[in-house]
C-alpha cells in the first residue's frame, strides 16, 4: 500500500507490544463499537503516486490555461502578470513551504523576517503606518476592514461602493449577517461612486471604495475622504498594489484602512487561490488589527530578532471577545509578495504599472474605434477598462476562446443591464500584436 509513513511491520508489532495491545484496532477502544466503520470508506483504493499525478494531469489537460493558446485579457482581481522564475524558486524553498505558524520564534526567524519585510513593503505601498501578516484574499480583507470600522465607531451602517469587486461585496454580504452590519449599496455614475448626502441616513461606520474600482476607474478619494470627515466614518480603500506603482497612495488621500488583493504580486492565476489578502491601516487602529502582526525585538543577547506580537488581540487568547477569528492566513503568499516586490523594486513596480496603463490605453482606444463599441465609463483608468459591446458579452467571451483569447469578463446586470458590458485587463505581458489581434477578433465577433 502506498503511503508516506516509515513503519515496518516489525515496528508496528513492537510498538503495539510496548503498549500491551494486540492490534491497531485496539488503539480505538474508546470509539464505541456502534460508531466504528464496518466497511472501508467509499473511496477508491490508493494508487502509486505516478498514477495519481497522471490523473491530476488528465484533469489539468481538460482546462484551458492562459498562454499562447488563450491570451489573457481577463482581470477582475486576478491578473496575468509576468512571473519571474526567481520568485517561485525562492518562495518554493521547503523551509518556507513546510513550516507552521511561527509560534517558536527562535527557530522561525526566516518566516518572521520575511513577513516583517512584507509588512513594511505593504505599509509603504499603501501609505499608512502598519500592515498585518496577510488575510485570505481581497474579500476577507474588506470584511475585516468593515468589522474594524464598526468596532471603532460603534455604528452599523456601511456605505459600500458598487465599484468594489462584486465577489468581495457578496462575501461581505454573507459574513455581515453574523454581526448584523447594514450594507448600503452606493451606485456608480459615469464609472465613479456617487456618495449619498450625509444628512439623509444614519452616519456610517465606513465608506468602502475601490482604487481603481472594478471598472478600472480611478475614484476620487478626496471626495470620499470629505464624506468621511462629514460623517465621522472611516475611509476603507480597496487598492490595487500594481496600480500603486503610479497612483498616489491611499494613505496620502487620508485612507484609514487600506485593503486589497495581492495576487498580482507574484502569484499565479491558480483558478482563484491561494491568493493574498492585503490589510494595512493607521497605527491608531493597531489594537484592532485583525490577524497576525510581526514585530521587531531583540533576543537574550541583544541581537535583532522578530516575533509575532500584540498577540492578545488574537482569537486563541481573546476567544469569544476577539474581533477576528482568523488564525491560519496566507503567509507563504505574503513571503512570495515580499520576494516579488524585492525583485521589482520601486523602478520595476512603477514600470509594470506604466506598461499596464500604456497597454490599457492602446487597447481601449482601439476597441472604442470599433463600430458599435461604446465606453461603459468615462473616468480615467489605469490597468483595466469597461466597454459596451453591440452583442451579449458572455457570448463574445465564449466565442473568442475559440480564437485563442480570454477576452475579458462579462459584466453582471448591476453594471450593464442588458449583458453587453465587457471588462478588459491589459498587463505588461500583452504585446501590440496580441492586442491588435484581440480587437480584430472582437470586431468579427460582434458583427
Amino acid at each position, binding site marked *: 500500500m*502506498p503511503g508516506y509513513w516509515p513503519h515496518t511491520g516489525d515496528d508496528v508489532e*513492537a510498538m503495539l507490544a510496548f*503498549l*500491551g495491545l494486540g492490534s491497531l484496532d485496539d*488503539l480505538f477502544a474508546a470509539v464505541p463499537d456502534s*460508531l466504528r*466503520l464496518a466497511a*472501508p470508506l467509499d*473511496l477508491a483504493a*490508493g494508487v502509486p503516486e505516478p*498514477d*495519481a499525478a497522471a490523473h*491530476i494531469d488528465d*484533469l*489539468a489537460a481538460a482546462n*484551458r*490555461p*492562459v498562454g499562447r493558446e488563450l491570451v489573457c485579457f481577463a482581470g477582475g482581481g486576478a491578473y496575468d502578470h509576468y512571473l*519571474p522564475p526567481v520568485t517561485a*524558486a*525562492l518562495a518554493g524553498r521547503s523551509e518556507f513551504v*513546510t*513550516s*507552521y505558524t511561527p509560534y*517558536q520564534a527562535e527557530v522561525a526567524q526566516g*518566516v518572521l*523576517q520575511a513577513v516583517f*519585510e512584507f509588512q513594511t513593503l505593504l505599509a509603504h*505601498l499603501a501609505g499608512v*503606518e502598519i*500592515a498585518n501578516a496577510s488575510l485570505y484574499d481581497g474579500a*476577507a480583507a474588506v470584511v475585516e476592514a468593515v468589522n474594524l470600522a464598526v468596532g471603532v465607531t460603534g455604528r452599523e451602517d456601511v456605505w459600500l461602493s458598487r465599484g468594489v469587486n462584486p465577489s468581495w461585496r457578496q462575501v461581505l454580504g454573507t459574513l455581515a*449577517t453574523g454581526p*448584523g452590519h447594514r450594507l448600503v449599496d452606493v451606485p456608480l455614475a459615469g464609472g465613479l461612486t456617487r456618495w449619498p448626502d450625509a444628512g439623509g441616513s444614519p452616519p456610517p461606520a465606513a465608506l468602502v471604495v475601490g482604487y481603481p474600482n472594478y471598472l478600472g476607474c480611478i475614484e476620487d478619494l478626496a471626495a470620499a475622504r470629505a464624506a468621511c470627515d462629514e460623517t465621522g466614518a472611516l475611509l476603507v480603500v480597496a487598492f490595487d498594489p500594481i496600480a500603486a506603482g503610479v*497612483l*498616489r497612495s491611499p494613505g496620502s488621500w487620508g485612507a484609514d484602512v487600506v485593503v486589497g488583493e495581492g495576487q498580482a504580486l507574484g502569484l499565479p492565476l491558480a483558478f482563484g*487561490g491561494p491568493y493574498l489578502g492585503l490589510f494595512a491601516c493607521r497605527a491608531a487602529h493597531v489594537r484592532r488589527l485583525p490577524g497576525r502582526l510581526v514585530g521587531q*525585538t531583540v533576543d*537574550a543577547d541583544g541581537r535583532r*530578532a522578530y516575533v509575532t*506580537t500584540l498577540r492578545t488581540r488574537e*482569537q*486563541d487568547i481573546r476567544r469569544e471577545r*476577539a474581533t477576528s*477569528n482568523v*488564525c*491560519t*492566513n496566507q503567509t*507563504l*503568499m505574503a513571503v512570495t509578495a515580499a*520576494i516579488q516586490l*524585492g525583485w521589482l523594486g520601486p*523602478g520595476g513596480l512603477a514600470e*509594470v504599472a506604466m*506598461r499596464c*496603463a*500604456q497597454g490599457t490605453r492602446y487597447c481601449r482606444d482601439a476597441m472604442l474605434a470599433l463600430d458599435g463599441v461604446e465606453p461603459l465609463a468615462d473616468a*480615467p483608468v*489605469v490597468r483595466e477598462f469597461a466597454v459596451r459591446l453591440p452583442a451579449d458579452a458572455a457570448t463574445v467571451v465564449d466565442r473568442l476562446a475559440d480564437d485563442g483569447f*480570454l477576452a475579458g469578463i462579462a459584466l453582471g446586470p448591476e453594471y450593464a443591464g442588458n449583458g453587453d458590458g465587457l471588462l478588459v485587463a491589459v498587463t505588461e505581458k500583452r504585446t501590440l500584436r496580441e492586442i491588435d489581434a484581440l480587437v480584430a477578433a472582437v470586431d468579427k465577433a460582434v458583427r
Partner: protein
Amino acid sequence: MSGSQVSGSQVSGSPHGSGDPGRAPVGRDEPGTGATSARSAPPAVEGAPGGRASSAPLLGGDTEPTLFELSRPGRRAWQLPTTGVPALAIEDLVPASYRRDAPPPLAEVSERDLVAHFTRLSHRQFSVDLGAYPLGSCTMKYNPKVCDAVAALPGLAAVHPAAPARLVQGWLALLVELEEALCAVTGMAAATLQPAAGAAGELTGLLMMRAWHQAQGRQRRTVVIPDSAHGTNPASVTLGGYDTVTVPTDPSGGVDLAALRRVLDEDVAGIMLTNPNTLGLFERDIEAVAGAVHDVGGLLYYDGANLNAIMGVVRPGDMGFDIVHLNLHKTFATPHGGGGPGAGPLAVTAALAPFLPGPRPVRTAGGPGDAPGGIRDPGSARYGWEQPERSIGRVHSWHGNALVLARALTYTLVHGADGLRQVAQLAVLNANWLRARLAGVFDVPFDRPCMHECVVSAAGLRREHGLRASDVAKALLDEGFHAPTVSFPLIVDDALMFEPTETESVQTLEALAQACERVVAEAATPGGPERIGNAPARTPVRRVDEARAARHLIPVADSVSGRPSPPTG
C-alpha cells in the same frame, strides 16, 4: 467495550511502566504522579534517530540584514518583456492629481542579493522537511513532493478563475471529485470548498446553522463550546452573531455531560466539538451528546482539526454531526506555508446542503466512470456552476484555495480508503507510544489512551524547579526538535501537547523522548533550571523578548536606512 481499552494498568505492564496500576486517574486538579514514579529502562529502539535538526549550525546564526539595508540606489533585478506597445508618458496616461510624485519607497536590490537574502532567511527557519515537528493540534506531517509537482502544472496554475465553465472542465471535475472524497471521509452529503482556512470554515458553518434555524422559523442565541476548545471556535461564534456558552471538561477528559444537559435549552443553536478533543481524547459519550443537542433542536458542528486520528475508523456523520470542517493543510498534508495557505472545506448533511455557499461546482451531465486503476475517469461527465437553493452566499473571492485543493485530492488518491485508515492508525499508534514513553518523564493528566496527540504537564518542573512548559519547549529546540504546543489546552497546567503524526519513525520518537528526559534530568542538576530558563542557545537567535516587542512596537522597518521606524500605536 471498556474491557478492551488500553488502560493505565496495561500500559504499565510494558517495559517502560508508568507506575502503580492502581493509581487514580489524574485530573487537572490533581497533579500527576507520573514524573515522580519509578523510572524504568526505556524500550530498546534500535537504529539511527531521524527527524532531528542536528545540523544546527546550518540554521544561520548571523543576523540577516533586512531587504532595506541591502538596498542601494539604482540597483535592480526586474526585467520585463518587449511588447511593442506605444510607450506613452505618464503625463499622458494618469491625470496629475492622481499621480505619485515619486516611485514607491521599496528596496533596490540585485537579483543575486535577493536570492542570497531569502536563501539565508530560509536557513533561519525550522520546517517539516528539516526535522520532527510534533506541534500538537497542527498535524505537521510530511508533505509529499508529488503534491508540489501537481500544483505547478500549467493546466491548473495558469487558469483564470473567471474563465467560462467550458474552459475549466478539469478544475470543476477536480473540485467535484474532492468534494465527494471529503464527504466519504466525513460521512456527509455535500460540501463547499470555498473556505480558505479552518476558521473560515467555522464561520461558514455557523452562518449556515443560523440560516437553517431561521428557515425553521426560530431564532437561537447561543452556541455551546467545551472549555478545551480551540480559540477560533468562540471567536467564530461571536462573528456568527451568537453568544458562547462554555461547558466544563469532566475528570476523564470528556465533555461534562451533566453540565451540558443543564445548559441545553431552546436558545441553543448548536454545539462545536473536536473529536478527538484537544486533549487528544475521544469523546466516548459522543452519542449521548449528539442526542441531547438534537433533542433541543440544536446542530452539531465538528471542528476537523483532529480528523487525522479517525479517518477510515469512524466518521463524524456517524457520530451525529451535522456540519464538519476539515483542515486540508493538516490532515491532507497540503503544507502549511509558515502559517498558511490552508483550506477549510465544510461538509454537511443533506438537510443543510441547500444552505451551502455558492456557486458550487456540479456535474451537469454524464457520470464518472472508473478507469482501470480505480481512479475516477472524468471523460464522459460535464461540469458547471450552480447556486444552492437557499445559499448563504459566497465566502471566498473565487472558488477557495484551489491549488491547495488540488494537492489534497492528490494526497487522497495516493492513499485511498485503505491508506487514509492506515494514516489514522499509525498517527494514533505513534501518539500512544510517545505518551507511554513520556509517562515517566512528565505528569500525564487524564490517564487514558489518547488518539493522535498526547497532552502531558510540566507542572512538576514548575513546582520543583520553577520552570514552565515554555522553558521545556525552548530546551527542546536546542535538542534539534521543534517544540510541542505549549500552554494549550488551557485546562491543563503547563501543558505540552505532542502530535508526532504518522510520518515519524519510532527511532525519531525515541530520540524525542530521550531529549525530553535530558531536559528533565538537567532541571535537577545544579544550575540546570537556569540553563533551561535561558534556552535555547543553539538556535539562530536566543530567547526572543516578546514583551519588548509588544511594549515598543516596531511593526515595519525604515525603508531607507534600515533603522526601525519610531514606535507606533
